[in-house]
């Protein structure tokens, strides 16, 4: 019986592998891996004139290609890939360190020509860059940057590596400062903080921003001081987000604001539920980063005061950098790398959201023609394009 069952399972496994390996039409398949599930998307017939683009495969190592932000990133990357006739492959690593490093090895072994990566901590980049150097694969970071002071070894390695192309990232410190300023201007003075995972690179930068925002406010308003509490961590799931928020409120019943630093949306939903269940929506204002799908409704009912986000186009620019590096169009600066600063959008009212929805939710901020044209930009033009992205910018390009 055991042998029969084992044989059946081998058959299922073999059929699954055969199904993954064949197929000329665009298809989505899922194969299991040691580190994570992965998806391979075959592009449609190339719209680009260059026949070589049919062979380009770009891998994406991302925390999740299915959560609110991750699925938007996949949406825009896939649109660019389709416009340029490039194939993509995704590995979800859940921001678990060993899975992040394993994901790069998986993508390298799968024959990727380039990799886009959103790592968890900068320490992983040593292994990532070494792997890419070994396999001669170009790699770019999105939503992340290697800090020269905090991670000097990784920074030096990135500079010297011929295959580390660069990074596209937001100014997380400025993001934190802006969110705190929004809260202080709304009258909040005792602000609690709920992170998702201790030690996460992005959280640490945002936390620095929140702290600097408080310091700046207090310096400008010596008679009207604000305080920021120590962070507590709610994980990624909504139930742990809620229990942590309830614990924070229970321990500090006089807070008038809660920053939910991020974490994919589940933690934020749980925290909002905690506040709503205790009837404290009017007392505690909530801000966060990474737009929820029902942000419009939450802005209207007051469960969210403001959010920063809309930065899902960040990986598009990492994609373009990597694509051009593969094509030989971008020559990496000597002992340095490319760096693109990407702006957050801030939404603090239903009117703000309506404009955002029109140009970033109902459609992508770049259409196919613009994506094809972007592939021919110089790096300077690409960086300028990224920096100028805003609701007004899309409105000007697409009308309305």
């Amino acid at each position, binding site marked *: 019986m055991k042998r029969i069952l084992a044989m059946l399972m081998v058959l299922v496994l073999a059929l699954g592998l055969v199904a993954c390996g064949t197929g000329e039409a665009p298809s989505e398949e899922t194969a299991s891996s040691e580190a*994570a599930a992965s998806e391979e998307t075959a592009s449609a017939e190339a719209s680009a004139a260059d026949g070589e683009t049919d062979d380009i495969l770009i891998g994406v190592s991302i925390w999740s290609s*299915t959560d609110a932000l991750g699925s938007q990133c996949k949406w825009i990357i896939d649109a660019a890939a389709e416009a340029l006739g490039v194939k993509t492959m995704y590995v*979800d690593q859940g921001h678990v360190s060993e899975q992040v490093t394993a994901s790069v090895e998986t993508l390298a072994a799968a024959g990727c020509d380039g990799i886009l990566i959103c790592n968890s901590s900068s320490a992983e980049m040593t292994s990532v860059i070494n792997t890419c150097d070994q396999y001669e694969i170009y790699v770019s970071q999105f939503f992340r940057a290697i800090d020269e002071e905090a991670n000097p070894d990784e920074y030096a390695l990135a500079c010297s590596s011929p295959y580390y192309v660069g990074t596209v990232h937001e100014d997380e410190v400025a993001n934190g400062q802006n969110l705190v300023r929004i809260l202080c201007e709304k009258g909040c003075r005792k602000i609690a903080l709920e992170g998702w995972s201790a030690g996460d690179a992005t959280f640490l930068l945002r936390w620095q921003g929140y702290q600097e925002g408080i310091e700046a406010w207090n310096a400008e308003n010596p008679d009207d001081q604000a305080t920021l509490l*120590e962070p507590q961590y709610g994980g*990624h799931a909504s139930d742990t987000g809620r229990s942590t928020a309830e614990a924070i409120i*229970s321990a500090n019943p006089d807070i008038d604001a809660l920053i939910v630093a991020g974490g994919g949306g589940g933690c934020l939903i749980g925290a909002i*539920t905690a506040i709503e269940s205790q009837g404290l929506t009017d007392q505690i204002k909530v801000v966060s980063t990474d737009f929820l799908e029902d942000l419009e409704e939450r802005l209207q009912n007051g469960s969210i005061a403001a959010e920063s986000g809309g930065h899902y186009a960040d990986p598009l620019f990492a994609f373009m950098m990597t694509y051009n590096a593969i094509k030989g169009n971008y020559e990496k600066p000597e002992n340095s790398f490319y760096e693109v600063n990407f702006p957050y959008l801030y939404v603090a009212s239903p009117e703000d959201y309506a404009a955002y929805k029109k140009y970033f939710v109902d459609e992508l901020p770049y259409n196919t023609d613009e994506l094809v044209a972007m592939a021919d930009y110089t790096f300077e033009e690409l960086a300028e394009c990224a920096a100028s992205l805003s609701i007004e910018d899309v409105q000007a390009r697409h009308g309305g």
Partner: protein
Amino acid sequence: MNLSDRLQKLKTNKAFGRYYGIALLIIMAFVFWAIFKILTPDNFGSMDKMYFYLQSSIIYSVGACGFYFIVVMGLFDFSIGANIVLSSIVGVILSRQFGYAGLLIGCIACGTIIGLLNGTLYVKLKIPSMIVTVGLMLIYESVASFVAQGKEQSLDKALQAFGHAPGNIILALIAFFVASLILKYTKIGTYCYAIGSNEYVAKNMGINVNKYKLIGFVLLHLLVGVMAILVVSYGTSMRAITGMGSMEFNFTPLMGCFFGLAFRKYNSPIIAIVIGEFIIALIFNGFIAIGAPTTIQNVITGAALLIVVALTIKPAKGAVIK
């Protein structure tokens, strides 16, 4: 009469002996409460706050009760978290068509089917339960991702009765009652203990070991299906998680299960689980109340668990500790 003799007399006392274990747990809970109450009297431990500590702890208690059925037999299951995710998502999707019936039946049926699958494969493949359930965890995570279609599944506001009192307490009490009934008054409970005590002897006595191991898995995942109802009602949404990320749901119920194992000799494992999870919630909230960093919280929680279990488990002389 020295202290040890006095304690032994208490344990064997006809009137009081059966409550010795429960009394010990209540004293422990009181000690932890008192420590944090002294450290931070203003923002910890008042009656209204105790409700919040309780409502998060009973969710994990339900899962821990289910876990107990297989852990007592010497088995393990890594797919609990994946079950919670998948069952929650199935329940939420069905609730859109069928309301509460969809939520309840969806979660419990999905959980039961998972238990049946886990138990059947474990019995038929004859490989360690840890290995089987790790493989199945990856499969269930992928299935959940497929079912959710990449979207966060949110439970309608009108269907969140099990996210607060009295709905969550009633459902949890029903689960505790059923688990306790099965353990104390049915053949299943007796045979689970017998198999855990000595599987070869149990088999030689005519107990169908494989059958009761299968039943153990079914009961575990049925109760985890109930836990999924509580989790998704409490958090109001569930997102599919891949890459073994669902394992984060495993550990809190596991810690409660350890309390049940430590106190089973006092014939009150279910109550031990409930109070044990409550103690964990007290510690968690206590540390937040005093503003301690999360790293310290986890160190102290782990240490407290080790101390409690070490003090209450007394293996027989010469017994091999695995």
